[in-house]
C-alpha cells in the first residue's frame, strides 16, 4: 500500500522543527509501524536525505524506548499497543499519517521524534525504590505477600516508562507513571517502611520536573501500552494525604 506521512523533523534540541511530507510506497500490511519507518528511511538514504530519527530497541513493546504521536494519538490507534507493536494492517491504502514527537516541557525534543525522558529517571531516583542494600535481604519467603496485593503490584509495575501518558495528557501530567511506581512499591509489605516519604518525595520530584497536574482526563490510561489504570493515581493521592496527615 501507499501512504503519505507528515513527520516532525527537527535537526537538534535548539533548532526549529517542522512537519515534512514523505511518501511511503510498497508498505506491506505485516510490517510494524517502525518497520514502515525503516523502509521510509532506507529510501531517504538512497535519495541522500537524512533518515528520520526515532528511539526504539526491543520492538516487542517492553523496553519503552519507542513512542510517537501517530495521527494525534500516543502510540497510535490501537489500544494497549506500543508503536513498535502497531502493525500496518490497521491502516488503509492512501491513508495520511501524521507523526509527531512526545510534547512536554519535561521531555525536550532532541532530534526529530527523539525526546529526552530522563525526568522519569529522576522521579524514580527521588524515592521510587526500596532501600535494601545488596546482602541485607531476609530469606525470600519469610514475608508472605497476599496474592491479590502481589498481582495488583505487578499490574502497576508493568509500566514500561515510555512516557505516552505524559504525551497524551492534556495537562502534560506524569501522574500515571509516578502513581504506578508508588503503587507498585506501596502495595508490597517490603515497601511499607518508606511508604510516607516515598510518595512525598516522588510527588515533589514530579512537580520539580515541571509536569502538569492531573484533572482525571483519563487519556493516559487509554493510550498506555500496558493499560495501567488511573485508579493508581487515586491511590497515589490517597497515599499523599495519608503521609501528610500522619
Amino acid at each position, binding site marked *: 500500500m501507499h501512504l503519505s506521512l507528515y513527520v516532525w523533523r527537527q535537526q537538534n534540541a535548539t533548532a526549529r522543527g517542522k512537519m515534512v511530507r514523505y511518501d511511503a510506497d510498497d508498505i506491506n500490511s505485516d510490517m510494524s509501524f517502525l518497520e514502515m519507518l525503516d523502509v521510509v528511511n532506507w529510501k531517504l538514504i538512497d535519495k541522500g536525505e537524512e533518515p528520520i*530519527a526515532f528511539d526504539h530497541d526491543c520492538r516487542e513493546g517492553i523496553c519503552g524506548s519507542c513512542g510517537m504521536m501517530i495521527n494525534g494519538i500516543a502510540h497510535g490507534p490501537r489500544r494497549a499497543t506500543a508503536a513498535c507493536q502497531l502493525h500496518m494492517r490497521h491502516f488503509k491504502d492512501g491513508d495520511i499519517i501524521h507523526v509527531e514527537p512526545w510534547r512536554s516541557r519535561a521531555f525536550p525534543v532532541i532530534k526529530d521524534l527523539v525526546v529526552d*525522558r530522563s525526568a522519569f529517571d529522576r522521579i524514580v531516583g527521588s524515592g521510587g525504590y526500596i532501600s535494601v542494600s545488596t546482602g541485607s535481604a531476609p530469606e525470600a519467603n519469610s514475608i508472605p505477600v497476599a496474592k491479590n496485593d502481589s*498481582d495488583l503490584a505487578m499490574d502497576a509495575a*508493568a509500566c514500561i*516508562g515510555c512516557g505516552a501518558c505524559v504525551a497524551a495528557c492534556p495537562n502534560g501530567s506524569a501522574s500515571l507513571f509516578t502513581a504506578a511506581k508508588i503503587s507498585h512499591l506501596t502495595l508490597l509489605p*517490603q515497601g511499607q517502611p518508606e511508604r510516607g516519604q516515598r510518595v512525598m518525595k516522588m510527588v515533589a520530584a514530579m512537580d520539580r520536573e515541571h509536569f502538569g497536574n492531573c484533572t482525571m482526563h483519563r487519556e493516559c490510561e487509554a493510550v498506555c501500552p500496558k493499560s495501567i489504570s488511573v485508579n493508581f493515581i487515586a491511590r497515589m493521592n490517597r497515599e499523599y494525604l495519608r503521609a501528610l496527615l500522619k
Partner: protein
Amino acid sequence: MELNPKVPSGPIEQKWNHHCFEMKLVNPSNKRKHTIIMVGSGLAGASAAASLAELGYNVLCFCYHDSPRRAHSIAAQGGINAAKNYRNDGDSIYRLFYDTVKGGDFRSREANVYRLAQLSVNIIDQCVAQGVPFAREYSGLLDNRSFGGAQVSRTFYARGQTGQQLLLGAYQALERQIDSGSVKMYPRTEMLDLVIIEGKARGIVARNLVSGRIESYAGDAVVLATGGYGNVFYLSTNAKNSNATAIWRAYKRGAAFANPCFTQIHPTCIPVSGHYQSKLTLMSESLRNDGRIWVPKLKGDQRRPNEIPVPERDYYLERRYPSFGNLVPRDVASRAAKEICDNGRGVGEHGLSVYLDFKEAIGRLGADVIREKYGNLFEMYERITDENPYEVPMRIYPAVHYTMGGLWVDYNLMSTITGLFVTGEANFSDHGANRLGASALMQGLADGYFILPYTLSDYLARTKLDQVSTQHPSFQQSEGEIATRVNHFLGIKGKRTVDSIHQELGKLLWDHCGLVRNQQGLRLALSQIPEIRAEFWHNIKVLGSDDEINQALEKAGRVADFLELAELMCLDALEREESCGCHFREECQTPDGEAQRDDERFCNVSAWEYAGEQRPPVLHKEKLAFEYVPPTQRSYK
C-alpha cells in the same frame, strides 16, 4: 598470553566461601577514592553499579540507552532459576549445578557453575526485598514453574515479564545511588575504546550520542556488562541496538575472546515475514508443553493446515524422539526444524516455518484452559501475524537468541587484561556450549550483586594504582583514532545503507555459522566476509553530521565490529571439530544424527587473542576438568 582461571583450591562446595575470606578488603575510608567505570546498565551492570556504590566506591556508569531501564535484559520473559527447593521436589544447589554443567554439554568451568548455583538463592532474597513482584500462591509464598532442561520446578517468574521486573529492581537500586551522588550516570553514551595504561585497564573513551563529543573517562578498574552479540546475525530476538562493540574493542586491546561460535538458537520464534523484517520475536518455549509440532508429509503441500488429515502429517519430533517428543532441548528442536525446511517441507509463504498446533490440546483441555495458560502468547502471536492460533496452527521457526561466547574471564571475572572485568552475557559465562532457560538472568545478577563486589574489591586492595588523568597520551591517541573513524564513515559517501550490508552478513552467517555448520560452509563464509567488509568500508552511505544524534552513524560503527567478529566466529566454529551443545558440526554426529562431542580434543575453552590487523588471531585453550559431573553423551530418544 596466559589463561589462568584462578580457581581456588578445595572442595567445590567451599571454594567460593574460602575465596571470599581470602580476598583482601578495601578500607572503608579509601573506597570513595576509587573510581570504577561500569559500562552497561542491564541486569549485570545495574546490579553491580548499585552494589559497588553501596559499598562506597565512586562509580561512573555508561549506557547507550536513554535510560538504564531500557537495557535488553528488560525483554526476558520466562523466569529466573534458583535452587530454593521450595517445591520439595528434590532440588538443591548441587542439582542446579549438575543440570547447568550437563545442559552446557560439558564446556563450562565447574567451579564457576557451582558458585552460580550457590548464589542463585541469594538473588531471589535480594530481588524480593527490592520489591520484585514475583508470582505468588494463595498462601502468599513464592510460586515456581518448570523450565526446559530440568525435572524440578525452580523457576521464579513475574508474569511474562521477569526480566523487566528484575531489571527494574536493579534500576531502582541504581537510581537511588545516582540520586545520592555515588553513581554518576552517563546515558546515551557509547563506549568506543578501552584505555590501558601500564598494562592495566584504566579508562574508556566514549562518544556522547547526543552531542557527538568524544570524551575520556579514567578510573581504577573497568567493568564491561555490555550484553550479548546475537545481533551479528542481523535478525535475532535481541533488542535492535544490542551490539558487540564494547567487547570487540576490548578484544582488540588484548582481552581474549572465548568460544565466539557458541550461539543459542531458540526454536519457538515467530517466522520472518519479509525483507523489511527488523527483528524476531520469541515466544516462550512453554508453548511446547501443549503444542504439537508438525509439517505435511508431502513436499510442497499447498493445502491449508486444517485441511491436511492427520495421517498425512509428520509429527517429526514425536517420531524421532519418542520419549521427549516435542519437549526435546532447544538445540535439538531448532535443528530438526531447519532440517525439515531445508528438505523443502517447511510451511508458510517462504517455506521457512513449521506448525505448532494446539488443536489437540484445545480438544482435550478446552479453549479456556489453553487461554488461561497461554493467552498472552496467543495474543502476541495474533498481533504480529494476524492469525488466530486458536483456529489455525501457529507457525514457528528458530531464531538466534543468546550468545554463550564472550570475553574470557577467570574465576574473579577478570579478563586477560588486568583490571578489566566482564560480567553478564558479555563474558563467556557459565553456560558452556548451551544455556538452560532461565539461567542468564541468574548469571547476570550473581555476577553483579554477589561476585563482582568481592572480586573487584580484592583487585583494588591488592593493586597499586597510580593516579591517571584523561590527559594521558593513551587517552588522547584513542580519542584521535575514534574521531578519524567517525569521520571516515561520514566520508565514504557510497551507495549502500549500513542495514543492507548487515543483512547480507547476517544471512551468510545464518547459512553457514548458524544451526548447523560444516567445514565447507565455514570456509566459504570466511572467504566472503572480507568481501562484505570491503564493500562496507568503501560503499556505505552515512548521512548527517557527527555533532548531533545520528543513528546511522552509530549503526555503522557497530556493524563494522560485527563484520570482524563474524570472521572470528567462523574461525572458531571451523577449529572446533566436534559437535557440542548448540555448536553442531555436520561432520561430527552419531549415526542417528545426534551431536557427537570429542572430549579428547575439545574439552576446552577456546580463547582467541587478537594479533593485529591482517594477522590471524592466536588460539589459546583453557583445559576443562570435570571432577564432579562426569561427561556423558546427551540422549533424548
